[in-house]
Every structure is written in structure tokens, then in C-alpha cells.
């Protein structure tokens, strides 16, 4: 050492990253377009397609039913800029030579994006209040529905982060992320059941590793569906399994995207 080291920055770099990224969403009109589109679709789908009003039930399950579709489209739209924009502008080189670890930078970016999606979700609260005004809903169930939707958004964002780390084009990042999320929506509805049965066989696929035997069935794939994991939340059931599923996908996406950026 040739001179006293500057004070250790601690969490300051992470906090600075989080602030910049979150504010970054509102620097362009795109954020407002995003929020408007999310709200318009969330409300329209619930009322006009789901028949929330006609059902005569003071519940938001018909509102949350479409959230996997919405997040599959809009989380990749919000997450496309995470790394692709840094690569396009050439600022990734700058960022990675500043005293912040890639993990701190990645977590700051990811949480900022998740917070932005949370804002979009919070803006739909008038739907809940409307249901509260029209009837007598179980507010605990509504709260768990919102929590599930937010977790579902995080999982889609994790996938979007990987797509964004792989390219310098936001458009390619968005399309790739959307397709991957779309697949996770469809698999839960059993769209690929026949195809998967053909591939895995009626009994499922047996994988042997040392003394262990793993059986992978078509139903296991179905368990990966976004709606299948969100549904319990909309019924007021906060089960450990779907929570673990959403968080695993979110943080696996975050981790993998960070490794991709680190190994550039």
C-alpha cells in the first residue's frame, strides 16, 4: 500500500445503484406507458374477460387469474434494460471498473426493477377497494393474492434478467424473456401434456444417479406453471412450496444473469 485506503464504502454502492436504477425507469416516458398498459390490461381482463362484476362474488380471484399472462409480458419489458442497455451504451465497462461488486450491482438493479413492478401492482389497488365497496371481501385473501402476484412478477423478472444479460439489444432481451415466461404460463395449463407424455412416457422418466432414482412425470412439469403456483395465494393459502418456487426462479435468474455478466 502506498497511501491510506479510502474508507470501505459498505452498502453505499448498492444503495446508489438501487436509487439510480429505480429513478431510471421514470427518466423516460416508457415507464408511464408501462404503468398505464399494466393497469388498463389488469382491470380490463378482470372485468371484461373474467367477468369480475357479473360473478357477484366479492373476491379478486378473477383479477389475479390473468396476472401470470401480464407479468410474462410486462416483466421482460421492464427487465430488458437491466444489462442490455449497459452493454449498448458501453457503460458496463465503466460500472465494472467502479468499486462495486457485480453481485451488488446486479442485486441493486434487480430489486429496483422489482420495486418498479410493485408500483405497477400497487396502482391496481382501486380494484380491491371497488370490490370492498361492492361487497364484503376477505382482506386477508386479497393481501395474499397481491403477495403472490408480486412473487410471480419476481420470478418473471429473474428470467428477464438472464435474457438481458445475454444480449446488447433490449428488443432481443424482451422477446427472449417473454417467450421463456410464456412457456412457464402454458406448461401449467397442460398445453404440452401430449408432447411431454411422448417424451417422458406414461410412467414418467426415471433418472438414476448413484443409489438414487428420480422420477420425472408430466405432472412435475405442470407444477412449474406460473398460475398453478399463484392460484393458492388467490385462495388465501400461503404455502411454502409456491413461495419457494417463485423465489427460486427469481434468485436463480438473478444469480445466473450475474454469472453471465461476470464471465463476459
Amino acid at each position, binding site marked *: *500500500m502506498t497511501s491510506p485506503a479510502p474508507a470501505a*464504502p459498505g452498502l453505499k454502492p448498492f*444503495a446508489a445503484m438501487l436509487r439510480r436504477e429505480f429513478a431510471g425507469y421514470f*427518466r*423516460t416516458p416508457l415507464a408511464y406507458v408501462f404503468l398505464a398498459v399494466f393497469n388498463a390490461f389488469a382491470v380490463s381482463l378482470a372485468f371484461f374477460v373474467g367477468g369480475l362484476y357479473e360473478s357477484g362474488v366479492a373476491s379478486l380471484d378473477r383479477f389475479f387469474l390473468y396476472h401470470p399472462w401480464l407479468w410474462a409480458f410486462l416483466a421482460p419489458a421492464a427487465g430488458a434494460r437491466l444489462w442490455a442497455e449497459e452493454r449498448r451504451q458501453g457503460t458496463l465497462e*465503466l460500472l*465494472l471498473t*467502479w*468499486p*462495486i461488486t457485480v453481485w451488488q450491482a446486479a442485486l441493486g438493479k434487480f430489486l429496483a426493477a422489482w420495486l418498479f413492478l410493485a408500483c405497477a401492482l400497487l396502482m391496481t389497488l382501486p380494484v380491491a377497494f371497488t370490490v370492498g365497496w361492492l361487497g364484503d371481501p376477505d382482506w386477508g385473501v386479497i393481501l395474499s393474492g397481491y403477495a403472490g402476484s408480486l412473487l410471480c412478477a419476481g420470478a418473471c423478472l429473474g428470467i428477464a434478467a438472464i435474457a438481458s444479460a445475454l444480449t446488447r439489444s433490449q428488443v432481443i432481451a424482451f422477446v427472449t424473456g417473454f417467450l421463456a415466461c410464456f412457456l412457464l404460463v402454458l406448461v401449467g395449463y397442460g398445453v404440452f401434456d401430449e408432447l411431454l407424455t411422448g417424451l417422458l412416457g406414461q410412467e414418467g422418466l426415471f433418472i438414476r444417479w448413484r443409489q438414487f432414482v428420480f422420477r420425472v412425470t408430466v405432472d412435475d412439469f405442470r407444477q412449474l406453471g406460473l398460475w398453478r403456483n399463484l392460484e393458492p395465494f388467490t385462495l388465501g393459502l400461503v404455502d411454502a412450496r409456491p413461495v419457494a418456487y417463485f423465489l427460486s426462479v427469481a434468485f436463480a435468474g438473478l444469480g445466473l444473469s450475474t454469472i453471465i455478466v461476470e464471465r463476459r
Partner: protein
Amino acid sequence: MPLIEAKHLSKSYGALRAVSDVSFSVDRGEVVGFLGPNGAGKSTTMKMLTGHLRADAGSAHIAGFDVADEAVRAKQHLGYSPEGAPAYGEMTVREFLRFAADLRGLADPAESVRRTLALCRLEEVAAQGIDTLSKGYRMRVGFAQAVLHDPEVLILDEPTDGLDPNQKHEVRRILKEMAATKAVIVSTHILEEVGELCTRVIVIAKGEVRCDESREKFLARGADLNAVFRQLTA
């Protein structure tokens, strides 16, 4: 201990050997002109020194810290402006510098930004979006973020590229003012910069160091620096 130390750095891109066994060190007070034709390995060497690229072999130290193993500590002592001075175009100059100051965890970020804006004569465009600036100003913004924390080590990749003569003079003036307390590496194609700015010259070609000597020795090689350059890099 030298402030910048490159030990046997090598880097390949597939079959192409971009940098091959490059070693040198830079002490406080030295301004090293890093010369070489396009594709010689200058930027790759700088990227390895700054920790942006991982070396295939060898090591790099900034202020005594290994850029691979003690990356954050090393980067605290480093100011780096990559080629083309990239910056977040949607931010204003002040916002960008403030972000850099916050990210570096500086004790008084507002004062650091104010001082740097004055030093780089950026006050008049401080509230302007970086995307709307001329190339000259953008290069100065890139330079400003590199000196914001008054680092001991400055690595600048073509900091005067695309600037008009007045702007070049301005950047050189600031660099000269700072040089006494820092170790500086400046990559350039502009041979006149050697005489005006540098205390030492390293010429690199085909990924290898072809010459590493004092400015005086380099200038004594011949009156026609272009011919000297061609001969060294052939």
C-alpha cells in the same frame, strides 16, 4: 512500491493472441504514453489493468492491490475512462457525477461533484442531459468521472480522441496539473502528445512491448516521430 504494476499479462481471443507477456510498472509522478497502432493490444492491456477483463495469465496491481483478488480495494484507487468515454446518456452531467460519487462512497459527494465540475469546466452544462452534449463535452464528462475521487492511479484510453485543438490543450493542462501526485497511463495515437504530456513512453505492437523508455530517449530516436513509430511497430 509502484502504483501500477503489470506482470506478464497475456490475453487471447480465440486463436488471436491480443496481449502476450506484457510487464511494466508505473510510479507516482509518471505520465506514461501508451502508444501503438489500432489492434496492437493497448485497450486490452488497459482493460486487464482496470479489472474489466480477466487476464489469461499474469497479474495486475493497482496501488498494491491485485485487481482480480482485491478488486474493490484496487478500484477505489483507480480512475478510468474507457475509449469513447461512455456515460449514462439519459442523466444530466451533475446527476451522473453524483451517482459516481455515491457509488464510490465518497465522504462529501456534493463537494466532490462541485470541485470536479469546476476542474473540468463543466459547470455550464451541469444540468444538461449527457445525450445532448457535443463530443468534446462528453469526453470531458468521461474524464471528470475518472478524476472525481482524486485517485492515485489514472488510466485514460484515448482521452483526447475527437477533440478540437483547444479541448485537447485543456485536457492536457488538467492532466499536467494532476500528474505530480499520480501514476497516469494515457493511450493515444497522437505522437505530439508524447512531447507535450508524457514523462515516459511504452510502445506496444502485436500484443508485445516494443519499447519502454523515458520521453527524452524516445524523442532522441529521430526527428520524425511517425517514422520512429512505424519502425517500432513494424
